[in-house]
């Protein structure tokens, strides 16, 4: 099959899945077997197609992107936006990650969502998500990418609010959508800037002509990239738009794994890589990207230290890890960013699915005893490794990966990013600060992950006497995908083994054709020799210390169950309340805006001023004036004569002027 056919087939398969499952959701919601077969089947097929695309591309000697024009979408004069897909090295990598991880998570969901009445609806949403995610990574121009960009946001909204009867869930979905929309505003404005500057919105055109069209470091390219990055902060949950992601944990756990860890939230990193040439031409923007990334990595990690909901910890961890990716991208190490994106997809999906297994077990236990305890609160767990051993071992692998312990996948990718930041410090010292923050965040990462593992799997079990008997490992359909992800978390680093341990940076070379325009502007001299070894050693040491501290501190004292736990005090309280950022946004933005709309604009301007004073006022004034003039009409002939004479005098004076 030719590459072009494979590309549209990769998208068409989940489209078909969405349509079938959507129809089933409306009319045959109980046909769960059919839903499972269709829902997961199309994804597996899409993954096979993606492999074919990858193979086809690697066999293509020209290395040029393959553009598949499906139809002309927005042709208006000079503007020619085609609904077109572009397959190049970057898109192929993303295609593999998306279809691969999605397939696994679809399989997992078959077990996890088995009992849910909205099973078919769930799979139709999930299929739809994959459609949009693929459109996002395959789109050949900004508007088509934006279809996917917003589409995944929509699916995220639908899936976060999947159990919509609970207001909290519906609120979380809405919050995610609106926060994302703030980012989308940035994306749109960036698109307008690009249109004004280039007169074209195709990625290929922009990459090719950026160097000749824009002045490096100029205002225009800086504006474009900053607005693009605003879009990224929304989609990829960076400061200041990150607050939706922890709330998004209200959705089913596989959704958190797929959308809010492995794929959608990395779209921002993908976008930066996709437009690398623009960012490379805008050093200020790049520094902002790196800075925001570093700050977010550190900031989110601190919050992660003090969360008790197992998914919230992972959520802040995701925010933090996304910060790393942006640190890499902002540093100019786009390949490293993508590399971390890939490894993170493996280990974080694993962590989420593992936590899903844990929650599944906890939920089953509480359900069996009709207890209303919180199945996600780690204070109610403890010692679970006896009950869910497979999950425990797999999550341990993922923990080591995220903590940056060699030879697990996360070690290589995180190390590359930190090394790049350090290297960039040579010509822009501020990057040393970023590097420092990154290192500190790595320490915290190891710490909170150790805390998570310790609270969940080690120590005494705190679930409850009766419930304990009901704690079971998940069925094979759920553990199976975890095993695959576990393997990938171990060996994932192999896709971009650095030279110093004998690798040849395969991913970096693979991505070269895409990243080359950017690299022309910001070449990065990576540290070599002893400096490199020192950096690597330090990173490993930091990871080990963090893990050790984490286990030590957590297991060193007894943990009360959630119900009986005393409230946090002091800085711990600030951390557990997430620095009060949500409250701050509510007080500074949401409430004033609603107040402005309701009290000032609607009741004030609209009802009082425009309608009351002007419109109805005109009517009232007319009526009053009429009423006043009417008073002259007394019925008295005398008055009439007087008025007559007044008029007569006026006329006679007027004629004699």
């Amino acid at each position, binding site marked *: 099959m030719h590459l072009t056919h494979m590309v549209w087939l990769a998208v068409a398969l989940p489209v078909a899945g969405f349509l079938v499952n959507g129809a089933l959701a409306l009319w045959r919601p109980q046909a769960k077997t059919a839903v499972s077969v269709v829902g997961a089947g199309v994804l597996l097929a899409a993954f096979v197609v993606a492999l074919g695309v990858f193979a086809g591309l690697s066999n293509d000697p020209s290395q040029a992107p393959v553009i598949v024009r499906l139809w002309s979408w927005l042709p208006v004069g000079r503007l020619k936006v085609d609904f077109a897909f572009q397959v190049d090295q970057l898109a192929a990598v993303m295609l593999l990650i998306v279809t691969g991880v999605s397939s696994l998570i679809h399989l997992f969901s078959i077990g996890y969502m088995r009992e849910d009445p909205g099973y078919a609806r769930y799979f139709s949403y999930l299929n739809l998500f994959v459609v949009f995610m693929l459109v996002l990574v395959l789109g050949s121009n900004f508007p088509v990418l934006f279809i996917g960009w917003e589409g995944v946001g929509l699916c995220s909204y639908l899936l976060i609010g999947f159990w919509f009867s609970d207001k909290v869930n519906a609120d979380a979905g809405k919050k995610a959508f609106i926060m994302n929309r703030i980012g989308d505003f940035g994306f749109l404005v960036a698109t307008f800037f690009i249109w004004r500057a280039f007169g074209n919105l195709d990625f290929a055109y922009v990459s090719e002509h950026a160097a000749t069209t824009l002045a490096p470091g100029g205002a225009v390219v800086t504006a474009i990239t900053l607005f693009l990055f605003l879009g990224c902060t929304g989609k990829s949950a960076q400061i200041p738009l990150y607050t939706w992601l922890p709330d998004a944990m209200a959705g089913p756990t596989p959704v958190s794994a797929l959308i809010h860890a492995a794929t959608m939230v990395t779209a921002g990193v993908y976008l930066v890589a996709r437009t690398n040439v623009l960012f490379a031409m805008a050093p200020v923007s790049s520094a902002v990207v790196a800075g925001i990334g570093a700050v977010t990595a550190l900031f989110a990690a601190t919050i992660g230290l003090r969360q008790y909901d197992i998914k919230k910890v992972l959520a802040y961890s995701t925010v933090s890890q996304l910060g790393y990716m942006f640190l890499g991208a902002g540093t100019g190490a786009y390949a490293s960013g993508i590399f971390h994106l890939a490894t993170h997809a493996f280990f974080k999906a694993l962590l989420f699915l593992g936590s899903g297994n844990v929650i599944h077990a906890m939920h089953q236990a509480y359900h069996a005893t009709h207890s209303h305890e919180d199945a996600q609160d780690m204070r109610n767990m403890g010692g679970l490794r006896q009950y869910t051993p497979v999950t425990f071992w797999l999550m341990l692998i993922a923990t080591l990966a995220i903590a940056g312990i060699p030879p697990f996948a996360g070690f290589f990718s995180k190390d590359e990013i930190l090394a790049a930041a350090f290297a960039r410090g040579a010509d822009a010292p501020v990057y040393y600060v970023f590097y420092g923050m990154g290192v500190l965040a790595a320490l915290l990462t190891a710490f909170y992950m150790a805390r998570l593992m310790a609270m969940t799997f080690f120590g005494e079990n705190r679930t409850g006497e009766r419930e304990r008997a009901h704690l079971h490992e998940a069925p094979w359909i759920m553990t199976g995908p975890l095993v695959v992800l576990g393997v990938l978390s171990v060996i994932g680093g192999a896709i971009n083994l650095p030279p110093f341990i004998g690798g040849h940076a395969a991913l970096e070379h693979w991505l070269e054709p895409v990243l080359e325009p950017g690299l022309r502007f910001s070449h990065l001299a990576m540290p070599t020799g002893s400096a490199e070894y020192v950096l690597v050693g330090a990173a490993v040491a930091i990871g080990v210390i963090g893990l050790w501290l984490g286990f030590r501190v957590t297991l060193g004292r007894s943990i009360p169950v959630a119900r009986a736990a005393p409230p946090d005090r002091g800085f711990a309280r600030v951390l557990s309340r997430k620095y009060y950022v949500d409250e701050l946004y509510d007080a500074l933005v949401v409430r004033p805006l609603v107040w402005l709309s309701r009290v000032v604009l609607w009741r004030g301007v609209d009802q009082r001023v425009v309608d009351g004073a002007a419109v109805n006022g005109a009517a009232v004034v007319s009526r009053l004036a009429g009423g006043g003039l009417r008073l002259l009409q*007394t*019925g*008295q002939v005398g008055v009439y004569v007087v008025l007559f004479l007044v008029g007569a005098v006026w006329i006679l004076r007027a004629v004699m002027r």
Partner: protein
Amino acid sequence: MPENTFLGPSLALSAILFSLGVAGVLLRRNAIVLFMCVELMLNAVNLAFIALAQFHGAGGQIMVLFVMTVAAAEAAVGLAIILAIFRHTQSVDLQNINLLRG
């Protein structure tokens, strides 16, 4: 052209009479008196016509005859109307006649 036409004084007198009529209409409240004042105005105009007719031929004089006829007709109709209203209100004081207003 007649030598001594008294045009100026005639017109002045006419104007004074007219004004007296207007003033009467303005000041009096009795319907009959009011009507008499209107008649005074008409006759003031007649005087003017007569005075002017000295220069401009018979038109003015003819007009005077017509005006007198019309005034008579008006008087007939007017008095009948005043009579009709008197039946309702037992008064010809215009201050009492204000059923219609507003």
